[in-house]
């Protein structure tokens, strides 16, 4: 079983400060191992990968590609070339939106539960008339129904872009079933894995998933690096929208010969330190075991939700059954604005997020126009922290609610 107290020792910020950090859906803390890997790159072998032939460059290339292998293995991709480095999940989704060869009349199906990163790229394409955009609407608890996907996916549907785990309700989409229906209808599936990959084991081959984006910084890795997973043949089909150094094998004045994937989709000098840090983050999580993380987070979710349900005047967003959720909960307390509540918690050294969490349509859909407060936990959070959090909330709710 996972020992959160022991693992916290690896996180300088958690060790040295008294903060109760419950804003992990936004970004996570970084363990020493990740910081060390980045520092090592900058202090011991900083150079370009792929281009130069000197020893430093060779070492950088090795570590950079090793990181790609680690990330590929982490989600059980077939080959490391199925991992394309991006800045983050947002860029991964935008990469597909801008590189996928859509034809006029193609439909993209998405949901009203999406993060802005999984919605706006499609909105833009729809406004340009490149695609038609359709939506599956979740219920008020944020749950997506398979029947709705069955109804909406048709022969015109080229791509289903769906959030894997919600950053507002903490619910996990029935991705396997969605993929099955999509594939039966000749459509591909792109999953927004930002809140999935960090929290439970993801096996892209078992899922038969076509594309998935996720960010390192939400899984103890550095900011500024993420990736797009794509099946090899599908990545080859993408038409790169950023061209330049590293993306070609040869060029003359009027034409060029593109590199193989993934490099053809990674224009310019890459974030080597970030990728190496991402590799170290994946090592760290793998050592703990994603199944252990999932189990422990379920325990946290149970404690958190049961505790929240005892807070007077508290309205939980999403299902009340902890079994249906990750350790991520959004809520409001009657009579207190979400921002006010977040600031009051911050005064008590508890870091949570408030606002729309980049999910405007969903908040509007459930009538929470001012947004909500979100507590999102990770494996280094403890049961004791949850206890303090709940007590503080009760105190605030009783005093002001």
């Amino acid at each position, binding site marked *: 079983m996972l020992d959160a107290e022991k693992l916290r020792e690896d996180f300088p910020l958690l060790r040295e400060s008294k903060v109760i950090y419950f804003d992990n859906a936004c970004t996570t803390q970084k363990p020493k191992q990740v910081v060390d890997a980045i520092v090592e790159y900058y202090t011991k072998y900083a150079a370009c990968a792929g281009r130069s032939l000197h020893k430093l460059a060779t070492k950088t290339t090795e570590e950079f590609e090793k990181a790609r292998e680690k990330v590929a293995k982490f989600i059980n991709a077939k080959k490391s070339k199925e991992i394309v480095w991006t800045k983050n999940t947002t860029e991964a989704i935008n990469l597909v939106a801008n590189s996928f060869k859509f034809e006029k009349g193609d439909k993209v199906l998405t949901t009203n539960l999406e993060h802005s990163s999984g919605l706006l790229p499609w909105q833009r394409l729809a406004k340009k008339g490149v695609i038609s955009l359709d939506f599956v609407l979740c219920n008020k608890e944020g749950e997506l129904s398979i029947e709705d996907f069955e109804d909406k996916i048709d022969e015109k549907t080229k791509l289903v872009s769906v959030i894997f785990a919600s950053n507002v309700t903490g619910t996990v989409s029935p991705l396997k079933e969605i993929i099955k229906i999509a594939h039966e209808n000749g459509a591909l599936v792109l999953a927004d894995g930002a809140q999935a990959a960090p929290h439970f084991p993801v096996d892209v081959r078992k899922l038969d998933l076509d594309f998935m984006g996720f960010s390192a910084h939400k899984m103890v890795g550095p900011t500024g690096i993420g990736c797009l997973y794509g099946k090899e043949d599908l990545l080859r089909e993408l038409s790169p929208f950023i061209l330049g150094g590293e993306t070609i094998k040869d060029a003359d004045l009027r034409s060029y010969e593109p590199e193989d994937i993934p490099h053809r989709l990674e224009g310019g000098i890459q974030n080597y330190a970030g990728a190496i840090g991402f590799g170290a983050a994946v090592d760290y999580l793998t050592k703990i075991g994603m199944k252990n993380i999932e189990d422990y987070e379920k325990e946290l979710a149970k404690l958190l939700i049961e505790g929240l349900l005892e807070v007077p005047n508290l309205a939980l967003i999403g299902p009340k059954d902890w079994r249906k959720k990750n350790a991520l909960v959004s809520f409001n307390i009657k009579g207190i604005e979400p*921002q006010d509540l977040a600031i009051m918690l911050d005064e008590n050294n508890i870091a949570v997020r408030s606002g729309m969490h980049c999910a405007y349509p969903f908040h509007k859909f459930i009538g929470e126009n001012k947004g909500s407060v979100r507590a999102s936990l990770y494996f280094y959070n403890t049961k004791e922290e949850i206890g303090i959090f709940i007590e503080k909330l009760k105190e605030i709710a009783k005093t*002001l609610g």
Partner: protein
Amino acid sequence: MVICIVALVVFSVLGIFSMRWREIAKEAFDCVYRMATFRPCITKLDQRIKSRLTAKLMKRAPALARFTYRYFKALSWIFTIVFFATMFYSAYGIYNLVVYGSCEPGSPTCGIDQAMSVISCYETQIVYGIILVLFIVFLYFGYRYLKFKE
């Protein structure tokens, strides 16, 4: 929003001593500037003041915290009016002092009574000095702000 006016004055003075307060004074200026141009304040400074104050009060006086949170807007107005009324009377006293050589012309002494006269004269002079400094700081931030906006 109205509390931003007081915040601007207070934090401008504190800003002389620390960068941290200067940043808040800048936010307050932004808020006041927007108010003056009939736009909503977007810095959320008033919200932060309200919430932090409530959280601090909650530890010692929950009833007062509840009262502050519920009636923050009304309290802000009262506080702002009292603040500016005090400023006005101080300025009035200074004006009298400069023009007539006494804070209270007609009164045989400068202050409320004989014993207090020296103190109250000193006080008004200090207030006069503070207002001057505030005015300079206000102009400085205003200038910097407008330069930044260009």
